[in-house]
């Protein structure tokens, strides 16, 4: 029982069914996208419910320029993915390769930018001292994702950390406002480990906004990765089908393109929700 035999047996794998006007996979992907809308819809609903119930909501934690650049990357890839499919329909395989390749590269670039954004958050710290003072800023050497446990970990052997508080004042990202910031903030501080009650990076555990940010964009990143893998497969080894079963290959590229549009669309909603409002 080979793949070819099987596909011959099942009707409308390539041809559209006359009364529905769809081939099977096209209906399948639309159904899948409907369920994806419900998945992300649940996250956006949760965002609304959590934000409405929140006493305070941080703003300005994310870099709008980086987000805008990423929006530009994904929006461009939406165009190139259509160009790839359209070139294929016109029978221009080399142009398909070009546009499909550009789409994959744009996806990879998006992921790289996202990686830098995550790194920025996980090297940004909030600290609460024994006297109740709360500070936000960076630790000398920009260590990645330390926590209170790291400070007391004998493997690190830390006795003090050099802390660069954020410009302005130590803002109250958590709990009460801290008017009693001990020193002028653009100086670096030496904080003995014994004085530090709690240290955490601006990861998803830090507040509800960041929890939503990491979870929603994280799920979106998984979708970008999955989509990019499929697109790359059709650019590379999967494109051999162009020689053996060109109509089916065009269908496949169309279906993967529909998924890619959805991934872009999610980001179009994520960007203003998380970065701008």
């Amino acid at each position, binding site marked *: 029982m080979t793949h070819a*035999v*099987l596909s011959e047996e099942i009707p409308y794998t390539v041809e559209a069914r006359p009364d529905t006007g769809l081939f*099977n996979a096209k*209906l399948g992907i639309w*159904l899948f996208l409907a369920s994806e809308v419900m998945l992300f819809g*649940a996250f956006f609903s949760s965002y609304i419910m*959590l934000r409405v*119930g929140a006493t305070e909501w941080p703003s300005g934690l994310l870099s709008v320029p980086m987000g805008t650049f990423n929006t530009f990357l994904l929006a461009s890839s939406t165009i190139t993915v259509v160009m790839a499919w359209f070139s294929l329909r016109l029978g221009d395989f080399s142009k398909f390769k070009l546009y499909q390749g550009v789409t994959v590269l744009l996806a990879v670039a998006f992921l790289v930018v996202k990686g830098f954004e995550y790194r920025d958050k996980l090297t940004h710290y909030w600290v609460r001292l024994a006297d109740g003072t709360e500070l936000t800023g960076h630790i000398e050497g920009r260590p990645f994702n330390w926590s209170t446990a790291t400070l007391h970990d004998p493997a690190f052997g830390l006795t003090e950390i050099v802390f660069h508080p954020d410009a302005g004042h130590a803002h109250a990202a*958590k709990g009460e406002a801290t008017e009693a910031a001990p020193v002028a903030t653009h100086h670096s501080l030496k904080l003995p480990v014994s004085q530090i009650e709690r240290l955490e990076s601006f990861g998803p555990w830090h507040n509800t906004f960041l929890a939503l940010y990491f*979870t929603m964009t994280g799920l979106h990143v998984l979708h970008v990765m999955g989509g990019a893998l499929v697109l790359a497969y059709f650019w590379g080894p999967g494109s051999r089908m162009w020689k053996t079963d060109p109509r089916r290959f065009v269908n496949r590229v169309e279906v993967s393109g529909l998924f890619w549009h959805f991934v872009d669309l999610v980001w179009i909603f994520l960007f203003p929700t998380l970065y701008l409002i």
Partner: protein
Amino acid sequence: MPTCPFGPIGGPLMSTTVASHPGAVAEPAPHTHPEPGFLRKYVFSVDHKVIGIQYGITALVFLFLGFSLIALMRWQLAYPGQPIPVIGRLLEWMLGPEMASQGIMSPDLYNSFGAMHGTIMIFLGVVPLAVGAFGNYLVPLQIGAPDMAFPKLNAASYWCYFVGGVVMLASFFIPGGAAKSGWTSYSPLAVIADMAHRWDGQTFWLLGMVILITSSLLGSINIITTIIQLRAPGLDWMRLPFFVWAQLVTSFILLLAFPPLQAAGLMQFMDNVVGTSFFLPSGLVVAGQPLEVSGGGSALLWQHLFWFLAHPEVYVLILPAMGIVAEIIANNTRKPLWGYKSLVYGSMAIGFISFLVWAHHMYLTGMGQTISTFFQTTTMLISIPSVIILTALLVSLWGGSIRFNTPMLFALSFLPMFGIGGLTGLPLGLGATDIQLHDTYYVIGHFHYVVAPGTIFALFAGIYYWYPKVTGRMMNEFWGRVHWAISLLCMNLIFLPMFIQGLEGMHRRMYDGGATYAAAEGVAGLSQLALKLNVSISHAAWLLGLAQIPFIVNFFWSIRHGRKAESDNPWCATTLEWATPTPPPHGNFPEPVAVYRGPYEYSVPGRPRDYLMQHEPDQA
């Protein structure tokens, strides 16, 4: 007009064989491709029938496991604090002394078993059997398709289900044991129940659920696409068997209702493992210590997302059952279904409204009177199509010359049992009465009437009914009736008394069956009757377990030794699955089929036979 003589006792089959494909019994279907090896054929198969059987067997095993958990819990409820005979020692050896010291079920183990009983029964037992097994096996056959639209996705769906089930089962054996916060996994309890372990039972539960939801997603896309795209020529929408309609609506519910639970599951996973506070409000104190989390989450949010799935899920449990019962009733009354279109539109209405009733599980959360009023209204509305369907099935019996064979007995029992389950739900759907009844045994009685003697009876009916199509042999009629009679009796002995216990205020999660509450001074606690009922319910539950032995033996024995089905259509049915060879070969139909008529043309006046199959062209 001669009727199909294969009645309850099994008289000789009339000489008229199935009209359309000559010599179907004897000749094997022409095979064009070489026979695949054992692994490809039975294990990693992409044939919808094999996958359906895989789903069916796995789901039956899980149903048995889920039942075993409650059978053990029933010991603790009837005889609180006493060691479970024999099995208690086994539990201690398998799960450790902290779970079952001296064979006595610990509160933690009781909670684990309770949570996993619900989870296994719903997500690993009934739905995979109703949709995975029956849907997979029958939908392509009933619509005249060679297979599902996406055979490989179909296999992937089964294997996701299998892996999800293994993850759930594995959680019993990890430190801290399986999830213990009910099948509803309410936060914050679910997150703080086991602070000692980060990868605790709840985390496994969430992982298992995410995998199971993936399985359900793949399955529902496949069923919907298959029904829309692969119907045989002439099989237009109003000629679909009602079973197919039920599967279509069910699949849409699965497709659209499960993702919010997936989202909720991912968020609770983040709470549990990464340390976020999606569902953890500020100011939580656990064991006297303030919880070091950012807080600001919402416990209500979990309930909204959970019930957004879990109420439609109730209709996922009941709609396929209604589909099975409809097929069996039409066949055994030898009459067209009464109100076919009402059934179709009724099931669509159920599918739609089921997305608008979820918060009737949450009247006691303090979400507010306005919201409660909205959900009380929609809840009353959804009872209308449910009653329409039940009425149509009931009226279908009117004037029929009913054949009381095992499938029909189970199908007929479904009607009053589902009726009791449905009607006892009304007081729960109205806020004023729900305040009294919420979280009591009344609720347990109510939804078990819907699912246990309701859906599970319909599934038994379906197994007895389609068994000859799958195996070519009939299941034993006598033992089938024994199975039916004792099961029906026990189901009522178990669930009817629960209404009394519930009205007395017995809480559904009481570890000692309410003994402490009954003995408490200064409160109007439980009566001695409620406690005695614990014992009788437990005895009935164990007898119900024993009553399944005839079924299990019958099921396996009949594969080789059952009486041979005389034709491909032993029940003289009308729908397309009976037009295939038995068992159907790979590709199902030796020749392409076309459909000429509706699904239930029984006893059409002026015809030589009392049934006309859908693919038989008009002779005139």
